[in-house]
């Protein structure tokens, strides 16, 4: 088993470190969280450095790579900067469009992305009554006599929903009942009549604000449909596993940054005339934090390797998401604890990292939903033959 990085992956890591060193000073990161936005110049610099193209197909100007490398890019970027960024969401959104959109929609989306580094649209999938339980979605489109459709319903936790010009909405076809699995995706301009938004205020991950979105008799036309009619559910499910992996890659990166800070601090901070690292309680914290990070990293890259080698990861991605989000939150929490009173202030980045990790126990599927996904499958996997 070879755990080493390739030359290319090592060079990519060096490039990321250099980019963060040049373009993302601590005061900028603090400002981005306070202002809940990423400056266009940074998004453009990320694009110009070529990171935004990694993972996109070559025919669309991208640089295709394996999922392990995409994980390394994501983890390292979060580690080097110690913060979350929307860049990962951006490339996932563009990949969604490449997977499901028609040529014209893909062209439009890529034109914007390759010019600005931002996707053309936010993703409106979750609803107040339907998060991971997509079948309970009640947003619905109904066909009208003139061939148009009326969209009604509500979406929530729409990341960048108030800043991106369009939203990709998943909605049931004709019938909102849970039994109806027929749904479609629609690319809807945010300025369309009947579409309104309301800001939601998060306690963490403020760098990526989200909002609620309301659809009140929004008129859609057939050319706004993305992908095959009725197959929206299948589309939604397709990218969840990769999304879970990359969410944990981000968590792992920022938790590693917390570990870096805390481990260094244990050699600097003195109590009773000795550095706190000389106390076994602190040594145990560092030991358990490192185990949590290594376990998460091993699970992450094994799962990504399985995707790369064409193996199903429904169970593994759920295990990773459940374990990794909690483990990284615990690492951040212990790092904060090691800093004591200082850790509970905004003088360090540990509180921010803890909040960001904590949010990832919910985003992309809660810890509990991961049990729902993995538990029954595991019983089947281990059933006596």
């Amino acid at each position, binding site marked *: 088993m070879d755990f080493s990085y390739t030359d290319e992956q090592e*060079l990519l890591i060096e*490039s990321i470190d250099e980019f963060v060193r040049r373009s993302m000073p601590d005061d900028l990161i603090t400002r981005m969280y306070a202002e809940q936005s990423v400056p266009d110049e940074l998004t453009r610099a990320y694009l110009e450095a*070529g990171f935004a193209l990694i993972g996109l197909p070559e025919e669309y100007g991208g640089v295709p*790579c394996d999922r392990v490398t995409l994980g390394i890019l994501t983890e390292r970027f979060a580690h080097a900067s110690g913060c979350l960024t929307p860049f990962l969401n951006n490339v996932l959104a563009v990949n969604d469009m490449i997977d499901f959109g028609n040529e014209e929609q893909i062209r439009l989306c890529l034109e914007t992305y390759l010019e600005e580094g931002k996707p053309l649209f936010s993703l409106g999938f979750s609803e107040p009554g339907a998060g991971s339980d997509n079948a309970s979605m009640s947003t619905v489109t109904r066909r009208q006599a003139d061939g148009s459709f009326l969209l009604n319903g509500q979406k929530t936790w729409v990341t960048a929903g108030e800043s991106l010009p369009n939203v990709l909405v998943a909605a049931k076809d004709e019938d909102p009942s849970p039994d109806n699995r027929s749904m479609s995706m629609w690319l809807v301009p945010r300025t369309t009549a009947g579409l309104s938004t309301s800001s939601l205020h998060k306690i963490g991950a403020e760098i990526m604000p989200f909002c609620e979105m309301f659809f009140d008799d929004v008129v859609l036309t057939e050319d706004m449909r993305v992908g095959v009619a009725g197959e929206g559910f299948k589309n939604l499910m397709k990218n969840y596993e990769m999304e879970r992996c990359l969410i944990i890659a981000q968590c792992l990166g920022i938790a590693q940054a917390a570990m870096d800070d805390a481990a260094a601090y244990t050699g600097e901070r003195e109590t009773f005339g000795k550095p706190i690292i000389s106390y076994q309680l602190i040594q145990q914290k560092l030991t358990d934090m490192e185990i949590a990070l290594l376990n998460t990293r091993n699970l992450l890259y094994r799962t990504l390797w399985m995707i790369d080698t064409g193996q199903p990861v429904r169970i593994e991605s759920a295990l990773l998401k459940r374990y990794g989000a909690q483990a990284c939150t615990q690492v951040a929490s212990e790092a904060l604890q090691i800093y004591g009173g200082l850790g509970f202030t905004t003088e360090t980045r540990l509180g921010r990292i803890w909040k960001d990790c904590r949010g990832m126990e919910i985003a992309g599927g809660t810890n509990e939903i991961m049990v729902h996904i993995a538990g029954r499958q595991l019983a089947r996997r281990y059933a006596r033959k």
Partner: protein
Amino acid sequence: MEIIVALKVVLDDQDIALASDGSLDTSRAHQVASLYDLNALEAAVQLAALEEGSRVTVLTVGGPEIDDSKLRKNILARGADELIMLLDEAARDWGSFETARALAAMIAKRGTWDLVVCGDGSADRFAQQVDVQLAAALDTLVFDAVVAWEWAGAQDGRLSLKRKLEDCEQTLACTLPLVVSVMPDIATPRICGMKEILAAGKKPVSVLTAAELALDLADIEKSGGATRFELIETRAPARQKRAARMYEAASSEGLRVFCAEAAALIG
């Protein structure tokens, strides 16, 4: 335009550990491109982009240990078209005289050239000698301390150079061929994108030995002085242990203690 960049491979100073006796432990140090040579490479690549059909070739000289696949890709991902390495046991401890002779032989073997670009100085010795000695070996002009340049095109055929000297800035225009050494300000090394990193592995790399260049090593080393001295040791000066005391700045008592102790230290 055929542009040559002379690039030195050095041990990464970040990996060099200082032992308790002051000796340098280089056993874990990776081979990397010398810092300022990356600025020279970037400047050369930007200049090449101004003249269609231009090529940038990187030359490097050293012991066989500098041949590292990641290092090769790192150089070629920065826009160079080709890398030529002279790898020889004899070259491991060469100084600037021997290196300049070897580079001149490599350039002669390669063929046509218009411009040789050197960095301001190497990250390890910073002797700032290779540029002038290389120009002497190539029997051409050399200008150092170049901070900017302009290329009006092949028709004009002159490279306009701005040099930052001790007490003045000098601008001049010079026909090619020419050797220049550039200050770091001339260009910031690029951040390699994944596309360039992947493409780097497919670019041509040639490896030469001193024998293949028909270098008379005995003569070169004798003239350069390499046979006349022996490096006994390299040792860091003794360091005073730092107190590294932490004070609790969140309390006024902590601040008071800090101020009192600082005042006592300063006297």
